């Protein structure tokens, strides 16, 4: 039951004396153990007779437990996300301060509301500002429109237009500038964008006077 291998000399005798002690007799009932062995054997035989399930080895997918599959999926997902994180470009948020641009002139109609389609103005034409005339000395049919170049809008074309623009008859000092070359404004204050509208020529003062003072002609 025991051997003296590797023991110091003084312990060998003591080991022999200790080994002579016998543990108390086992209290395991042999009869009860045999009975339980028989029950266990009978149950196993019944399981075999019912279809041999107990003898069949589980297939590979039965051996692959759920938690193992879940761990595999999570590991693959983590690896894929890590690879994407490494491969993707990095964006760094940085605040850049730029000089504030000059406020663009606001295009208004005769009622003072912004023209919602001002963006349709031809970019090659000088941008104009149409403001509603509120001077009481203007006639009602003249009051609808006093067009002039926007102050501080220093396009060369703008200055040229201002010089060439016709003057309102009752206020010769105020130049009249149409919205653009293709569209004209009518006395109702709305921009006539119909295809048949006749554009006004800048140099034709008579046409402008007829346009602004139709009753006198």
């Amino acid at each position, binding site marked *: 039951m025991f051997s003296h291998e590797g023991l110091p000399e003084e312990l060998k*005798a003591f080991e022999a004396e200790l080994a002579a002690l016998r*543990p108390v007799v086992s209290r395991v009932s042999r009869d009860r153990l045999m009975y339980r062995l028989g029950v266990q054997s009978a149950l196993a035989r019944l399981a075999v007779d019912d279809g041999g399930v107990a003898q069949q080895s589980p297939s590979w997918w039965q051996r692959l437990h759920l938690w193992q599959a879940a761990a595999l999926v999570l590991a693959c997902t983590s690896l894929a996300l890590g690879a994407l994180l490494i491969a993707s470009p990095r964006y760094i948020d940085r605040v850049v301060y730029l000089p504030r641009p000059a406020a663009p002139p606001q295009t208004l109609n005769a009622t003072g509301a912004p023209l919602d389609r001002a963006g349709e103005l031809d970019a090659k034409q000088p941008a104009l500002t149409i403001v509603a005339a509120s001077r009481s000395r203007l006639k009602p049919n003249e009051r609808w429109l006093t067009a002039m170049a926007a102050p501080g809008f220093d396009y060369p074309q703008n200055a040229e237009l201002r010089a060439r623009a016709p003057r309102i008859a009752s206020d010769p000092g105020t130049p009249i500038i149409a919205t653009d070359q293709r569209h004209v404004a009518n006395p109702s204050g709305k921009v006539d964008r119909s295809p048949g509208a006749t554009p006004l020529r800048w140099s034709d003062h008579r046409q402008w006077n007829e346009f602004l003072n139709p009753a006198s002609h």
Partner: protein
Amino acid sequence: MQPPQTPMDEAAIQLVQQMLAQQGAALELYARQWCQAPEDVVQEALLRLARERPLPERPVAWLYCSVRRGALSAARGASRRQRHEGAAAKPVEWFAGDLGQALDAELATASLDDLPLAEREVVVTRLWGGLSFQEVGELVGCSSSAAQRRYVAALAALRERFGVRCFPTKDCPKS
């Protein structure tokens, strides 16, 4: 009609009977290190041995391992109950008090009980279970040399407790 092969055959039953006769007492002594009902743990281990397919190559070491697991599990389940009943429990003798023994059984029980569990486990499996140091190391989770060192240390501690009762021998004249 010849029945199909069953999980329990004659060889397994004979092995269980043999293990019960040879190792039953030592297995109970081993299981008693953790739990108060070692006979139940040993019986369950023997039933598991009968179900095991194929039969283990080293059934003694397999049984000690199975008993260890069962005893630890039983100890976890009974720990709460033991706290309430431990004070009133009657001390159980671990060894038979035969006449002619050089060592006193009660003193052996008390001395062995005083040992740390790691050393006591090695002594029981080595001395009364007959396991090799390699098997003891695999059982308790250490190397064979570590198991041997624990064994020697445990024997020295026990010998110190028994020192006055040791008979002088040629190899051990001090005692």
